[in-house]
């Protein structure tokens, strides 16, 4: 099973999803992220999904769940680099990811997090 790496840059955790997401690796990512949040006491999480071309309802829900997990550790999640096709799919599925903030790219996402503190 492939694992998604979690990078720490300053007070922000950076997760770039470059693989085809399997249900198992998604669960693993949630656990890894929770542990890393506790260990690093980060205040922000950036999830880069530029490389993600296909989503289903499970992955859509997972993205929202990661937002909720981060919020428990008082860290804000920003989802960056979503493809138009992915956005349309999520909307058609009725998943609006209410609790998660979004940005066009990683740069704007970082600015968004830094503006908060």
């Amino acid at each position: 099973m492939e694992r998604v790496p979690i990078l720490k840059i300053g007070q922000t955790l950076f997760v770039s999803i470059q693989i085809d997401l399997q249900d198992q690796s998604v669960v693993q990512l949630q656990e890894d992220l929770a542990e890393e949040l506790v260990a690093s006491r980060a205040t922000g999480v950036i999830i880069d999904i530029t490389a993600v071309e296909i989503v289903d309802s499970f992955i859509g829900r997972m993205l929202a769940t990661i937002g909720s997990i981060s919020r428990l550790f008082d860290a804000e999640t920003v989802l960056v680099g979503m493809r138009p096709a992915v956005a349309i799919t999520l909307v058609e599925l009725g998943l609006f990811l209410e609790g998660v903030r979004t940005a066009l790219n990683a740069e704007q996402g970082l600015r968004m997090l830094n503006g908060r503190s």
Partner: protein
Amino acid sequence: MLDVAFSALTQKVKTGIGLSLMDMNSSQGRMADFLRANEAKLLDRWCDIVFATVRGRMSADEVRAELADLYGLVVRRVSDADDSAAGELRAALAALSRSRARGGFSPSETAVAVFSLKDAVYEFVADTADMVPEYLAFARSIDDLGLHTFEAYAATREEIIKQQSEAMLELSTPVVQLWDGIIAVPLVGTLDSARTQLVMEKMLDALLVSGSSHAVIDITGVPTVDTEVAQHLLKTVMAARLLGAQCTICGIRPQIAHTIVSLGIEFGDIATKATLADALAHALRSAGLKVVPA
């Protein structure tokens, strides 16, 4: 299983046609001779009849050139001289009906171009009683050709309609850059699900390409807003949000505002403005920009 049954059926149909053709062969031969012998007279009469229906949209020479080609092919088809004649005739008729359909001719005007050959031939055959069976066989084959023409005409018209609706869809969904980081999507015409899909795709692509974080959707040109249209608008806004862009809806006319409220449609936390100018001002403000007099 089905294929076998089908091929058996087509085989049956083919042999059926083969038989009737064989019966007709002798009479077809006489008809071919007749057509060849009276070519000049028949062609003149045919051109006259067709030219009367054209009403100045084509010159007499054009009509004559077109029909002379067809006449030659019809004679070859009737005399059964070679196998390629039938195919060539059909192709020529398809080309004729295509050009008629594009030229704005009505269906009956197009069909008359073929059927009138029967009239022309009838006028000459009427005096000679012994040509009746030949004429009937000939009339039947012309009927087939007429039907073929009509089908080609209808297909061309469908094609034109499809092209036009595609062009209209393309024209009615422009995306313009209003400011650095602000794009506008002026919507004109009714919003159905096909349009919404196109608008969504074009807007999201434009957001991504231009790196804009604001989109203004102007619905001044949308004649009515019902729950379905509102649902489509909401979807578009939500998709833009997922990309990380804010959306403002503007151009809501008084009557439409009334309808929206009566229908109980909630736009939630989506910013709505009266005019494009207000929406631009709002977008500039939230981008941290200020317009000051020079």
